[in-house]
């Protein structure tokens, strides 16, 4: 069929080779010896000057991990990972103890500059990059925690946030400075025994961000963490812990990139969110790890456990994710709706291209009364990729009046890719109302031709149609990042353009 052939030819040109963040930073780094053992766990803990309780916690997780097996239920295929052939700790060698941003290794500063991440405390207007020649706006500020391989290299706006009572710092620091908070909440949403990758993370996590927003405080700026994997053969295991105390609000965003390499790299993060009474957490992710090349060589294995606990009444947690990177994505940001009247939301755009495999979705666990949840998932598959939405919605016996609305739409570009929807629904009480809608469509030749007849190039047409398809979710992102995400979506799909 000539019309289909045309699309196939177009899609063949659409590949993942245009990854723009694939450069490597050449700096001296300090690594733990390869492999995993109790000694390595001790090494990491010691490097971080951790208290004894933290080491114990890690060791317990490590022993647990030894008894576990890697999960195989997801629709993803990859060669066996040799956990003894990885580095579990890599840190840029500090010249001395840093007291200000000007003392950070210029190579690292340059890296973040190239990535468009502001490590200086400047306000920004649109996108993470200030507009060329544009004045930075006074109103919009974003605090950044920059994590480079296993360590946090800079956290901006800490002083200003402190004035508001907000704690935003690397988790390694929080363990030392706010042990009472960390001990109370760490592992309280994702227990050390949760799953193979989360347990591994608990044993060897290196750094990540810690946020505490005190009662009644609306965090005065967007918080963000920017993760960068640089070292070769190094796993990245970050740990993020966010606590929104009663009546508080925080919006947090994470971004991630990695150099282009032929071998796969493991990224197994854990994110825990806790919202107490009347608190709200908005967590957004723009995930752009290196996806591998157009032959499917290299790329990040993104095996991540993210869970939010709406612990208090009337609390709300909202996950928004734009997933364009990684060779394999295995992640299900979830909400435990424990507090009465609590609400969970999951908005997702997952784009797969080349040989990428995505198995992602969410779990909404309704435990409290009159809890509600909403799931909007947009999967886009191109090239030879496989894109699966996997979701679970359950209502406990006591979760009377639980409500869920789920809409999963998949868009296929070309005919060598696949989209799959695997919803699990379980209502253990009769007053729950769960609605589920799902569609799968091919990008329409007629729609593309309509756009092209009006003067758009084929690539622009695909970008426009896809951006229209994901619009409901894009609108959920903080304004600055929506612009960035929109660009990213077009880049991930446009072969020759961009």
């Amino acid at each position: 069929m000539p019309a289909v052939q045309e699309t196939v030819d177009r899609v063949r040109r659409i590949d993942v080779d245009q990854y723009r963040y694939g450069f490597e930073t050449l700096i001296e780094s300090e690594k733990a010896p390869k492999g995993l053992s109790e000694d390595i766990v001790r090494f990491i803990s010691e490097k971080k000057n951790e208290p004894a309780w933290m080491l114990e916690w890690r060791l317990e997780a490590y022993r647990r991990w030894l008894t576990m097996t890697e999960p195989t239920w997801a629709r993803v295929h990859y060669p066996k990972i040799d956990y003894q052939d990885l580095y579990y700790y890599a840190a840029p060698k500090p010249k001395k103890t840093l007291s200000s941003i000007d003392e950070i290794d210029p190579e690292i500063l340059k890296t973040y500059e190239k990535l468009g991440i502001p490590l200086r405390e400047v306000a920004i207007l649109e996108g993470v990059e200030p507009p060329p020649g544009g004045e930075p706006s006074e109103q919009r500020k974003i605090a950044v925690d920059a994590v480079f391989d296993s360590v946090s290299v800079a956290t901006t706006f800490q002083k200003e946030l402190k004035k508001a009572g907000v704690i935003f710092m690397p988790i390694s620091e929080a363990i030392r400075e706010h042990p009472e908070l960390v001990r109370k909440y760490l592992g309280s949403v994702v227990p050390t025994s949760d799953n193979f990758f989360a347990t591994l993370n608990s044993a060897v996590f290196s750094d990540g961000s810690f946020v505490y927003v005190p009662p009644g405080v609306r965090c005065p700026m967007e918080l963000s963490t920017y993760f960068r994997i640089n070292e070769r053969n190094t796993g990245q295991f970050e740990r993020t812990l966010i606590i929104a105390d009663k009546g508080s609000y925080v919006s947090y965003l994470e971004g991630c990139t990695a150099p282009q390499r032929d071998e796969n790299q493991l990224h197994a993060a854990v994110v825990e969110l806790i919202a107490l009474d009347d608190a709200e957490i908005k967590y957004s992710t723009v995930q752009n790890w290196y996806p591998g090349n157009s032959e499917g060589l290299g790329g990040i294995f993104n095996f991540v456990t993210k869970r939010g606990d709406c612990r208090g009444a009337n609390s709300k947690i909202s996950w928004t994710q734009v997933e364009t990177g990684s060779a394999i994505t295995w992640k299900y940001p979830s909400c435990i709706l424990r507090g009465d009247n609590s609400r969970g939301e999951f908005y997702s755009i997952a784009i797969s291209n080349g040989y990428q495999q995505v198995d992602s979705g969410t779990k909404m666990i309704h435990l409290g009364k009159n809890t509600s949840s909403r799931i909007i998932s947009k999967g886009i598959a191109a090239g030879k990729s496989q894109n699966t939405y996997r979701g679970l919605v359950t209502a406990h016996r006591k979760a009377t009046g639980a409500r869920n609305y789920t809409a999963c739409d998949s868009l296929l570009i070309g005919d060598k890719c696949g989209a799959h929807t695997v919803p699990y629904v379980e209502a253990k009480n009769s007053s729950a109302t769960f609605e589920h809608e799902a569609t799968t469509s091919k990008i329409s030749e007629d729609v593309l031709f309509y756009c092209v007849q009006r003067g758009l190039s084929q690539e622009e047409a695909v970008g426009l149609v896809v951006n229209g398809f994901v619009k409901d979710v894009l609108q959920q992102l903080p304004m600055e990042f929506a612009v960035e995400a929109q660009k990213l979506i077009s880049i991930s799909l446009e072969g020759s353009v961009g």
Partner: protein
Amino acid sequence: MALLEVKDLQVRVEDREILHGLSLTVNPGEVHAIMGPNGSGKSTLSHVIAGKPGYEVTGGQILFRGEDLLEMEPDERAAKGVFLAFQYPVEIPGVATMNFLRTALNAQRKARGESEYSTPDFLKKVREVSKSLNIPQDMLKRGVNVGFSGGEKKRNEILQMALFEPSLCILDEMDSGLDIDALRIAADGVNALRSLERAMVVITHYQRLLNYIVPDYVHVMAKGSVVKTGGKELALQLEESGYAQFEDA
């Protein structure tokens, strides 16, 4: 020089020949009507001129101002001034009409090496044109053609035509689905665009449209080629006698 010259065009779709040696010459300033029974190949001709994928041209030529149109990508043809108002305009969910109009217009201008419209200039222009076509502003905020009535979709096509100011306008059954008032408004919109430089090819089943848009030539298409050409009175004759005489030929 002729604006459009279709010479002995042969077109196949999936191994079936649909157009068998069709010829048509359109000069600047002229209005041509194409009539003919269902399935005679009218839309196929318009698609091939616009460059829709899926058609195989097995013979003949299409020249646009003397240039080989078949060598050009469809978006290039659009930028050169070929506009097709579709018989069945598609919906593009999530893409606001206003945004679409602007993206398309600027893409065309960029391809021609012209500067992009500034926001105020663009808005002014859209407001003018949409007003003359009786298109409410809030319709432009909705997704392209999403939830538009049949008549609204057709008016949206004319709106784009007026905005892009193409030199060749092909209108494929713009009258289908329009009520009497809407037909008049749309036809007025088309007539307003008639000029010495611009040509129109109007595909229709109904003589009535040609009372509003008066053609210089009427062509009868049957079974994949033009079987008769005449003046506007030919449309009236067809209304009387139907297509049977051509179909048996």
